[in-house]
């Protein structure tokens, strides 16, 4: 069985005020493969990430589970930490115990039980994870800007000034958008053309 480490985040009080993170970590130690589990105030902080990296090395972890906020928020952060710790970044799973748990439930017992269930779910999954390698694709270094108002003009100029080609498509016969219809503009009252 692969050696799994579980890291439970308090997120200050965002998670810990509803979910008993210490208990979740304790219960995680009973799950298959889990050899190390702990909670910490802010897992995404530098010391939090160091904790993960150190544990990977000291505990010879082969799989990592982080229970914290939504993966849509910090999946890449932790993936990078796992990679820096010496593991393939995809031997990692994230558990959402903030957006989908502590923020939407009041009952501490139920929320804590749910958190443990979700951690178990991730542990079961991560045991089946395989190392993955990103592929590469080429990039055409030209940009298309659709709309030639102030937004499109500013973007086009900035991109063009970095040295890349820009194609600007405007459906009217002139660029400028609404701004050229204005007289003077707040807050400076300078002209708008």
């Amino acid at each position, binding site marked *: 069985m692969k050696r799994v480490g579980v890291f439970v985040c308090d997120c200050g009080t965002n998670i810990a005020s509803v979910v008993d993170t210490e208990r979740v970590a304790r219960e995680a130690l009973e799950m298959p493969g889990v050899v190390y589990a702990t909670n910490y105030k802010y897992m995404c902080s530098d010391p939090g990430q160091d904790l993960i990296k150190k544990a990977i090395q000291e505990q010879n972890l082969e799989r990592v589970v982080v229970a914290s906020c939504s993966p849509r928020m910090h999946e890449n952060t932790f993936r990078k930490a796992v990679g820096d710790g010496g593991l393939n970044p995809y031997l990692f799973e994230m558990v959402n115990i903030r957006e989908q748990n502590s923020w939407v439930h009041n009952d501490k017992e139920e929320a804590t039980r749910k958190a443990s269930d979700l951690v178990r779910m991730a542990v079961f999954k991560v045991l089946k994870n395989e190392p993955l390698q990103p592929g590469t694709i080429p990039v055409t270094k030209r940009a298309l*800007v659709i709309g030639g108002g102030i937004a499109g003009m500013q973007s086009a100029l900035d991109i063009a000034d970095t040295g890349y080609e820009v194609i600007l498509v405007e459906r009217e016969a002139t660029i400028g958008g609404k701004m050229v219809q204005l007289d003077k503009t707040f807050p400076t009252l300078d002209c708008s053309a």
Partner: protein
Amino acid sequence: MVAVAQHPNIKMYTYSEVEAVNGYIGNFTVTIRQKAKYVDWDKCNGCGTCETKCPTKKLKSEFDLGLGNRTAIYKAFPQAVPNKPVIDAENCRKLKNGKCGVCEKICPTQAINFDDKDELITENVGAIVMATGFDLFDWTQTYGEYGYGKFPDVITGLQFERLVNASGPTGGKIKRPSDGKTPQSVAFIKCVGSRDDTKGKTYCSRACCMYTAKHSLQVLEKIPGGEAYVFYMDVRTAGKNYEEFYQRSLNAGAKYIRGRVSKIYPRGDRLVLKSEDTLLGMPIEVEADLVVLATAMEPARGAEEIAKLVGFSTDKDGFFQEAHPKLQPVETFTGGVYLAGACQGPKDIPDTVAQASGAAVKVAMLFSKPELSTQPMVSEVDVSKCSGCEFCVPICPYQAISMKQVEERGPKGPITRQAAAVNEGLCQGCGACISACRSGALNLKGFTDEQILAEVDALCL
């Protein structure tokens, strides 16, 4: 504007629309339709003789929002970029019934071409910035209490901009559309369509408090003895130097009345506005010569269609959806597509410019790398199990699966047969092909059947 036209790295297609977008981050193929202009812009020197000689003179100018006229061959305004005209085919005598052709005869560079056709152009790009902006909510459809647009002296803020603009139809003099008189008293109504969930939009349009303060200042500065009344729900001036600007309009004498105007009706050649002054707690009546409505911003006409075409989502109001409201305000959920300006939500110019520069940096970041790394959670084929049935090919929404020939050892020597192959650049990792695969040859890396079943098992323990 001119800086854009002159920049050696910028190629402009005006009078053009994007018709098709294919591909994925780093590798988009775009089809652009350049509409027929009937003027060869390479030859045209922008002299404008055609405009002065065109006999069709009384067309309502879209640029002046109906407050001024234009000809059938026209530039939107004298400083247009590029500074070249187009012919409005629907109203040109020559294009409609073959008679006229005056512009062709007098054009000193022979630039007129009545046989011009739409042209399709293909371009390859690596990133797309959406900057389609906004349009104004059409108040004439819903605001019966303000006259459904039948009072000529009830206008929008954008029309007011044309009236005060030095190159506008009145040369910058504030005159009433009905009789051309200078209004003595101008009333402004804010939140027409904004913050009004019964008739308009739930959201705040963000720029109107400030531009109404600007308009009231312009009335007080340009009209000697003039009066400016502003009807408001709240005054929102969150922005650097914005509160100070609002105070300037108060000090100049703008009269702010907290209340929503319930009715506008004519009295003689003036308009009466009935409202409640909610600070005094009593009904109030104001007579005005001109009424200016701060109408809500809404997504540009056609925004929904172009979002579908490029392949990203819109929000509940039809504005383009950013990937995260705080942390990814210029990205979309589609790789390589970024947002700038009012197309993402109502915005004033300072915020628009900031977001536009942000989008530009995202594009530059993308281009700064020699190649892109793809996310590895893509579909994978076990060729030994694939029967080559092609069932997965039409299922894939990204055209990422094609059939390729594979060679195998058969009982009587090598045989070739077809099997599915996944293009990892195109595959977005949705997994739709996997449940379609009858022989179990496909799996999604990172979300394999085994992984998901393990999760189900763990939850049901």
